[in-house]
């Protein structure tokens, strides 16, 4: 079916919503213009409703035929909690995109993908694109526990080898993704490129693990974003000693050149406000959501 990409009818409606775990949901959203253009590494800016904030979310999947895009959201604060309370048939007030610069897909040989938590969902389209380009794919999937381990089956389906690690050992090996990486290197595995998506601290240590081996390593950076179109610089990161706007030039950058410590400090800027906002939401909704 051919979709009119300029039509506003039915825009941003949730065609299908599924819960992948207690805090993680998959949303298939009607947005034909975005679906027609999306590539691996693109993201969208979502806004739940009037008065809502703009939050960046990576595109996990897209279908130009159905005019839909798929995102996976982990409820970690007010807006994501509210979004995951949406049901099939409800609509986001805004979905803007696709934004960012897609990942350059080529044949490296063997590509290692390292995903942490909800980052696994964001790794999925990139791993799939590299697979289609003829690469051998090794995946390391890390999570705090079994419940937060998502898309294991999908990742296994496209990977030549999958290693799973959890902090508590409830699935796969107990330990960190970097432990699994070290094992691969120790076993003499030849890695030609590493792509990592997950918590900043994890990506930092993935970069440190691959650095001595000289493996080209790329991380999908996740700074605070506002507009996502390059007009404010709130998302600026330091790569190779230079300021770069993650929303336009990224979010994928050379991990060996990234200043992760600065990124960690800058993402902590609104912690107090975020807590206040979530507490207020929890109070108003009398719901039992975990406040971390």
């Amino acid at each position, binding site marked *: 079916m051919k979709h009119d990409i300029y039509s506003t009818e039915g825009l941003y409606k949730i065609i299908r919503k599924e819960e992948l775990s207690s805090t993680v949901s998959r949303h298939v959203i009607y947005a034909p213009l975005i679906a027609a253009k999306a590539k691996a590494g693109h993201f969208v800016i979502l806004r739940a409703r009037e008065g809502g*904030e703009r939050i960046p979310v990576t595109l996990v999947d897209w279908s130009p035929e159905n005019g839909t895009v798929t995102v996976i959201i982990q409820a970690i604060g007010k807006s994501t909690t509210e979004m995951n309370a949406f049901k099939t048939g409800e609509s986001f007030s805004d979905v803007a995109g696709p934004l960012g610069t897609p990942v350059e897909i080529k044949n490296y040989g063997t590509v290692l993908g390292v995903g942490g938590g909800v980052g696994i969902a964001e790794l999925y389209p990139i791993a799939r694109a590299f697979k289609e380009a003829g690469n051998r794919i090794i995946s390391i999937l890390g999570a705090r526990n079994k419940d937060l381990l998502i898309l294991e089956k999908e990742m296994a389906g496209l990977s030549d080898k999958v290693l799973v690690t959890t902090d508590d050992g409830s699935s796969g090996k107990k330990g960190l993704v970097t432990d699994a990486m070290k094992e691969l290197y120790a076993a003499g595995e030849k890695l030609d490129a590493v792509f990592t998506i997950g918590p900043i601290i994890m990506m930092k240590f993935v970069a440190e693990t691959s650095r001595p081996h000289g493996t080209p390593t790329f991380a999908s950076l996740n700074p605070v974003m*506002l507009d996502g179109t*390059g007009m404010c610089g*709130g998302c*600026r990161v330091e790569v190779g000693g230079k300021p770069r706007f993650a929303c336009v030039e990224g979010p994928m950058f050379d991990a060996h050149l990234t200043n992760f410590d600065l990124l960690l400090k800058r993402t902590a800027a609104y912690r107090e406000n975020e807590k*206040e906002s979530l507490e207020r939401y929890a109070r108003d909704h009398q719901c039992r959501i975990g406040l971390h």
Partner: protein
Amino acid sequence: MEKPKKPTPSIKQNLGRHQDAVERRGNFDEVALGFSPEEAVTEAARCLGCKTKPCELACPVNVKIPEFVDLVYKENIGAAASKIFETSLFPAICGRVCPQETYCEAACVLKDKFGPVSIGRLERFAADHARRNGLITPPPCAPDTGFKVACVGSGPASLATAAELRKLGHEVTVFEALHEFGGVLSYGIPTFRLPREVVRFEVATLKKMGVRFLKNVMVGKSITVEELKKDFDIIYIGSGAGLPSPMNAPGEDLVGVYSSNEFLTRVNLMEAYKFPVTDTPYYIGKKVVVVGGGNTAMDSARCAQRLGPDAVTLLYRRTRAEMPARGEEVENAMEEGIKFEFLTAPVELEGDEKGRLKRVKCVRMALGEPDASGRRKPVPQKGSEFYIEADSLVVAIGQSPNPVIQQTTPGLSTNKWGCITAEEATGKTSLAGVYAGGDVVRGGATVLLAMKDGKSAAQAIHRKLTEKPL
């Protein structure tokens, strides 16, 4: 009331009432309160109705000033608004943000002896009154021509282009990257200078005329100009100058340091000042520093002041005489308690162990020889370094065009500042069928010049679309 006879130029010029300076520091409501009908009629009575119309000639979009002012005097406000609408579809916006003191009011023959007629305030009065009383009907549109035009951006340049082209019968679609229409009118200019209902009303009027508006589409990323050309006969680029210029001072990445674009977008577009009723947070400490001397710096300082810090200090490297900001805005900012440090520039930002801004190292300047622009160049004074304690800092030293469209449109010529090169009179770019105007061509300029560009480009586009082959 007793209506003054017309003309009575010697009545004192009325600059309108304003919200009290102390009170308004605590809210985002409009500062200028506008004329009452009586005040409007009295001010309109001052107009001499000059046959030579110097005010009208000085207006970049040639609003029929003596005629509409006379209609205000005759208390026929609907007709006055319609008269303005003949040449400008955005009187409630222009009446508020246009620097009349350098255009129409500067040309008023009463200016030197009695003070000019308050043309801007009268324009605003007519537009507000007509809007609130349902006296505005969208202008009629010519029969459909079958031609399709895409306007990129929904700021003043694109809105003006869209309005004119739609009136001429063309099918117009406006593409906006953000979730609200209006460009700088929505994200930049604060509500206390331009209430959002005004902008939304103007957009709604264009919608009633049949202009189609698409939000959340970033041309250059979501869709390219080349792709749009497959579906549209003409592309008009009015995407503005939305790329913030950094200071390039050490410490600019500290938490608490904002570009004016980010700060104003949070506060105005996302309504962060209502947090946590709205979801977008802002970080503002006790001591705020704003760097710059233009209207954006004034808006940033005045927004910051309303968020309740102990002090807001504005640093400007030249003197008040060189400030590009409107005099009225500078006065408003001073009344609201913003401290001005002239001939001062930040050289380094220092932070704490958490990476948060703590203090700003500044240097005093002196004015040296005139530079290429004819303005005297600020020269740092050796040994004059000093510190200002600050936990928030807003950089408002200028903007240039976002480069995404230029980079993704092969063959589109730009100048060394990244501005699209276009003919001033027509908006024609280096690419056939692609026109541009407003800040994306001029760099950071004014709302009014953007609207003027839009109007003239619309005329050129219309000629292009309807010209008969020889």
